[in-house]
């Protein structure tokens, strides 16, 4: 494959947006129902993404990528969320890992080369953070790097590694060594070709079925150069935590917008049948559109703040309580509003939205929407906010 340049010029963000729109309406939507039915990886969409070089969208141009920023990536996730939330979620999860590498690993020649290779081969990156015996607390690990000279071995019992068997590499959190404290963590890249996976949990769920988030005992080996040269605490506060929340919020907003669009079609259809009087549901459509407006407003405000901090190079700001609370608020509000919005859209569409085989079915939207508050449980996040709120003076 050649790099993102056509002749001597890089493609523009506008061109990339158009490309994602086209793929969303095409290959992504086309296979969304089958991906959902079979709880399978969206392989057609990802083959197309790789062909279109979308997996390296955030890699700097100096390494052959498109050099998109977080704000631009959020837009791409919002677009994809309209067509298939599972596909959008896998794309978002991959980009979260890329962001961790771009923001924290570029001082290492190994990772510079790895990202250049990612551009060339369009590698898909997955993540293994949660661990049996710890649950969703990202800031502690049981497993540690078993160091032998410059090589390591690592065994992690992960209740969830989304699309592990379709990924080329996984970024794994673990203790810096087997004797390190639970919170003394590193973030290490392991190549799936060199890993063993023993499945310990399946993924037959209500929604987000295409993310294939099964659990595995992961046995990996590698060289110490595969450890990102920054403490995981820093990677989490500056990149993983905020990037996750704004990208997820974006795709949930896409999902909500798609439900509102179906509601709009239903209202218009009713109006055509009786043009003398606006249907009752048009008032409901106005209401649900207000909710979508609020959801988007909060999300966009948060994206602006985060992008501003990244551009301003304010490293201390990422651990500020206020910023952490607002970053959590995006996740909390978007994940709960998406349920509210698709539920209200269903009331507007009516029985045709309740049918699985109708063109305005909202079945998948509703099942996917309920997953948003559970992936990183909202009450766990609220608990973190509750502690910080005690110290805060202003909102």
């Amino acid at each position, binding site marked *: 494959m050649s790099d993102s340049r056509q002749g001597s010029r890089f493609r523009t963000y506008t061109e990339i947006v158009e490309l994602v729109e086209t793929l969303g309406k095409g290959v992504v939507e086309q296979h969304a129902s089958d991906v959902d039915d079979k709880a399978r990886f969206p392989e057609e969409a990802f083959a197309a993404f790789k062909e279109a070089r979308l997996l390296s969208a955030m890699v700097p141009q100096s390494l052959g990528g498109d050099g998109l920023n977080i704000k631009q990536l959020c837009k791409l996730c919002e677009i994809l969320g309209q067509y298939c939330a599972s596909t959008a979620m896998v794309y978002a999860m991959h980009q979260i890992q890329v962001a961790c590498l771009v923001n924290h690993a570029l001082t290492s020649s190994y990772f510079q080369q790895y990202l250049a290779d990612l551009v060339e081969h369009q590698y898909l990156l997955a993540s293994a953070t949660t661990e049996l015996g710890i649950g969703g607390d990202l800031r502690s690990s049981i497993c540690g790097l078993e160091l032998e000279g410059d090589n390591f071995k690592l065994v992690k019992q992960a209740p969830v590694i989304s699309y592990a068997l379709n990924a080329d590499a996984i970024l794994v959190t673990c203790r810096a060594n087997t004797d390190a404290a639970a*919170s*003394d963590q590193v973030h290490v890249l392991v190549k799936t070709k060199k890993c063993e996976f023993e499945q310990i949990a399946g993924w037959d769920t209500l929604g987000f079925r295409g993310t294939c988030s099964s659990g595995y005992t992961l046995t990996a080996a590698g060289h110490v150069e595969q450890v990102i040269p920054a403490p995981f605490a820093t990677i989490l506060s500056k990149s993983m935590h905020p990037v996750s929340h704004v990208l997820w919020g974006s795709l949930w907003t896409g999902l909500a917008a798609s439900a509102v669009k179906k509601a709009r079609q239903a209202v218009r259809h009713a109006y055509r049948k009786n043009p003398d009087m606006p249907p009752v549901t048009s008032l409901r459509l106005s209401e649900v559109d207000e909710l979508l407006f609020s959801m988007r407003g909060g999300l966009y405000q948060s994206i602006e703040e985060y992008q501003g901090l990244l551009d301003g190079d304010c490293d201390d700001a990422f*651990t500020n*309580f*206020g910023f952490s609370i607002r970053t959590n608020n995006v996740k909390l509000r978007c994940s709960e509003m998406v349920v509210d919005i698709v539920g209200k859209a269903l009331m507007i569409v009516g029985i045709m939205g309740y049918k699985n085989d109708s063109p305005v079915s909202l079945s998948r939207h509703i099942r996917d929407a309920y997953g948003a508050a559970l992936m990183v449980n909202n009450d766990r996040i609220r608990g973190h906010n509750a*502690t*910080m709120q*005690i*110290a805060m*003076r202003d909102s």
Partner: protein
Amino acid sequence: MYQDKLRELLSKHGKLSVDAHGLETESDLYEAGLTSLTTVNLMLAIEDEFDVEFSDSMLSRKTFQSIGALCDALEELLD
């Protein structure tokens, strides 16, 4: 100047894994076991002890990173 008092408050509220009186001025308090919850407890104790108010912009890891950093913050607040 405020170090002794800060060590005392750390011992009482920090729930550290080591003795606060034995810490270097620049030792990382988070590595010594400070958490977000104990950070809040420590902050409230410092506010009560010195009759100061931490501004929201000071509420970040950097402020509570070490006894030295806390001294700097306190001097700023008492200025």
